[in-house]
């Protein structure tokens, strides 16, 4: 390629014994949206963090506009025209959009803060690139999609010529994704370059001019949009497989279109496993975040809850797991009314919960795998002998679980806090399944997991449903929800905003309902 905007050559980055980047090359042209495609743990974000000056590479060089660039910090990167939008935004909640964008740049005069010029500039940028934002709005009042635009404007305001977007579509509705992609095209038409970090093949195909596929810290290939298709990319990214449910997995991973998957991975029975009636749940501040929620789950059925984060998912999950008290309404599991019972009783009656925040809610980081597997059943007769916990037997079960769930650890005495995210999730699943659950609540079960662990989670879900367990899958990953679920329910402001059967899901309709624009909402 002639005169590329960015060239990264032979970038190596190691963290202790782990090689995160193994001599990776990347070339991004001018006027190009370049997709950086790969599963979690493939090294995409690490590579871009090197470019943005957050990590120092062990080897390799970076050229911007043909000149060797020495980028030691994000400040250097910004000065060199590189902007990056991370998955989590660093914004001052009670500042306005303009204030957030200007923060950290040079503003005229130490005493007087005149933001009218800045505001005009922001207005101009947002019109030019279709990034609709009110410069005077206070950031905390804005939805995620708009806050992301603020973050992009921040980079543009600082004169970015190369913009890196790290998984920008997480938490966006399909409509917002379309808008974002429109803005990205406007940027490259204006002479910029954009790097889109994503694990979703569909996204790269719809917006990128070229893409680089990464796997296990290596570049697998770089290819023109015109020369490739979803199947080819999926094979490069995931590796080919003929396992049962491969199509579902691929769809859930965002490799192929989830709506077109006919295969289902559950085995829906006829008996009602869980009945939720008129459920009201309040958050820690006492606000009703779940209002009049109804749900019926049959044995072996997977029901997916789609929604933008913060619409009551946490409260719903915790209420159905028996962790958060029900304000009103009822929850029946296998015909038994569970309202008002202690959390341990819910566990005892077959409710298993895989929480969203694994580190905060799921594990004892300073305890061993054995101890973590005992957590929750420390009073059950299987664990105790003559009134005391039988650690010998518990250790043996831990050894078995480590083998069965392919946990990568040195042994049952390994501290769970030392494990990687995927392995922590395996320990949590091993614990949940050891109790033969009747209802399994999964909240963002594959977030941050590499492809192997994500697939493993799906396999376990399949196993659970085959054993008649009802599964409630609450996820912000719409592809995952649509591909896995027998029924998809959209959650908006604590209520149902629509329901679809597997095979007749329209992602845009779900997206509309998730944002309160659906017809199904009265």
């Amino acid at each position, binding site marked *: 390629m002639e005169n590329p905007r960015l060239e990264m050559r032979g970038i190596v980055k190691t*963290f*202790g*014994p*782990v*090689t*995160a980047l193994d001599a990776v090359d990347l070339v991004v042209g001018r006027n190009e949206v370049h997709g950086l495609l790969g599963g*979690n*743990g*493939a*090294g*995409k*974000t*690490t590579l871009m*963090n090197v470019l943005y000056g957050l990590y120092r590479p062990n080897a390799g060089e970076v050229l911007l506009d043909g000149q060797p660039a020495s980028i030691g910090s994000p400040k250097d990167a910004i000065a060199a025209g590189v902007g990056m939008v991370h*998955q*989590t935004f660093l914004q001052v909640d009670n500042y306005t959009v303009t204030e957030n964008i200007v923060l950290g740049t040079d503003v005229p005069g130490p005493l007087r803060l005149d933001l009218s010029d800045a505001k005009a500039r922001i207005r101009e940028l947002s019109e030019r690139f279709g990034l609709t934002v009110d410069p005077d709005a206070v950031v905390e009042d804005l939805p995620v999609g708009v806050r992301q635009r603020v973050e992009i404007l921040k980079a543009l305001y600082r004169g970015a010529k190369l913009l890196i977007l790290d998984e920008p579509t997480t938490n966006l509705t399909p409509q917002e994704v379309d808008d974002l992609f429109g803005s990205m095209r406007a940027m490259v038409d204006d002479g910029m370059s954009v790097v889109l970090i994503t694990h979703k093949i569909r996204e790269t195909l719809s917006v990128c001019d070229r893409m680089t596929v990464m796997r*296990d*810290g290596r570049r697998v290939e770089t290819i023109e949009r015109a020369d490739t298709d979803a199947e080819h990319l999926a094979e490069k990214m995931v590796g080919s497989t003929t396992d049962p449910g491969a199509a579902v997995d691929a769809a859930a991973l965002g490799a192929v279109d989830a709506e077109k998957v006919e295969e289902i991975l559950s085995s829906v029975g006829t008996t009602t496993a869980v009945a939720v009636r008129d459920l009201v749940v309040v958050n820690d501040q006492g606000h009703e975040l779940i209002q009049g929620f109804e749900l019926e789950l049959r044995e072996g059925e997977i029901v997916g809850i789609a929604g933008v984060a913060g619409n009551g998912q946490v409260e719903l999950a*915790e209420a159905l*797991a*028996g*962790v958060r008290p029900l304000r009103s309404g009822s929850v029946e599991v296998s015909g038994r009314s569970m309202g008002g019972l*202690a*959390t*341990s*009783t*819910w*566990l005892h009656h077959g409710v298993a*919960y895989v*929480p969203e925040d694994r580190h*905060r*809610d*799921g*594990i*004892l*980081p*300073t*305890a061993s795998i054995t*101890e973590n597997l*005992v*957590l*929750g059943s*420390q*009073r059950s007769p299987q664990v105790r002998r003559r*009134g*005391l*916990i039988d*650690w010998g037997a518990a250790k043996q079960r831990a050894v078995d679980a480590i083998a069965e769930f392919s946990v*990568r650890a*040195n*042994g049952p005495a390994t501290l769970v806090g030392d494990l*990687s995210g*995927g*392995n922590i999730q395996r320990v949590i699943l091993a614990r949940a399944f050891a109790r033969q659950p009747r209802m399994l609540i999964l909240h963002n079960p594959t*977030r*941050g*997991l*590499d492809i*192997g*662990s994500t697939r493993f989670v799906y396999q376990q879900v399949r196993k659970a449903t085959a054993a008649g367990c009802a599964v409630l899958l609450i996820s912000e990953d719409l592809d995952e929800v649509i591909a896995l679920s027998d029924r998809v329910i959209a959650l908006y402001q604590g209520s149902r905003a629509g329901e679809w059967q597997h095979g007749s899901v329209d992602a845009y309709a779900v997206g509309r309902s998730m944002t309160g624009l659906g017809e199904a909402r009265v």
Partner: protein
Amino acid sequence: MSDTLTAPPSAASGPPAGPGQRPRRVVEALWLVVPYIVSVVLAFVVGGLIIAAIGRDPFAAFESVLTTSFNTRFGTIETLHKWVPVLLCAYAFAIPLATGKFNIGAEGQLLVGATGGVALGILWSDLPMVLLLPCVLVAGALSGAVWAGIAAFLMTKFQVNEILSTVVLNFISFQLIDYVASHVWPDRGAGHPATTPVGEGALLPGIGQAPPMHTGVLLTVFLVIVIAVFMRRTSTGFEMRAVGANLRAAQVHGIRTSRLAGAGLVVGGAVAGLAGAIEVAGVHGKMLEGMQSNFLILGIIVGLMARGSMLALPFIAFGIAVLEVGAGSMQRTAQVPVEMVLIIEALILLFLLLSDIARAKIRRH
């Protein structure tokens, strides 16, 4: 979330085979022990510099600090007698800490426990030992438990911070024993607020002669085993450790955390109360003002040094008892004030806490 947080497991090496485990375990053990040794050495070096700076001989001072406990039978017995309340107050701090709660009230609980013990020891002084001694010890433990129970109740019912309530209860306990020692059962001839002696049957029998070791030491050894088994093997002990490791996760998995935290405080208070009763029945034969000595602060130091390990507590407490007993003879032989020992103890703790940071840095490469 950064990709690096979920570094590819495939890139990491697989689980090492059997023989690989052993050197690993040795390395882990070294990581555990070395900071203690380094901290103690550094504390003595810094302490030595201070002693030299005030114009005394640090070597003479340290020799008497470190050898007094072992040179004479008297020193050994005194060390063991010191070990008992220091260790029990360390448990009183460490057991609630296992559930994430800070009990700063061990001295109050010790004094109230002593009050409970001394009350029965005086009121029922005619009872034979087989009846009276157990009554005194149980009364001590129960009184300590009730005293800590006040803080536990305020904490679980009204979310009153346990640090504040346990500290404040200490001050109330000072007034309480002052009242008991000067109005209820005062010993006018003592020249110092103290109660009259307890009955013969309330005294812990001694072992050996001149001076005898009281059997409270054996009782404490027994208690060490009971507590270790309790924390390690019982469901409640496991739950307490779970709450201390991650409160949220414990809740999510059905553990009633606030009830457990309250129970931890009460158990801690009972242990401190028992220490008070043992002091009455084994050392003083009565209750006197000031008997709490500096056991609270020593217990906290020991509890913090153990870093959550119930097994380490007895050994660390013994080391502290050695220093404490040596302090007096250091003052006599080397003219270094006894407070120097407290400085060294504090330095050990300080270096130990710093070692956590150093270790994290070294291990990250």
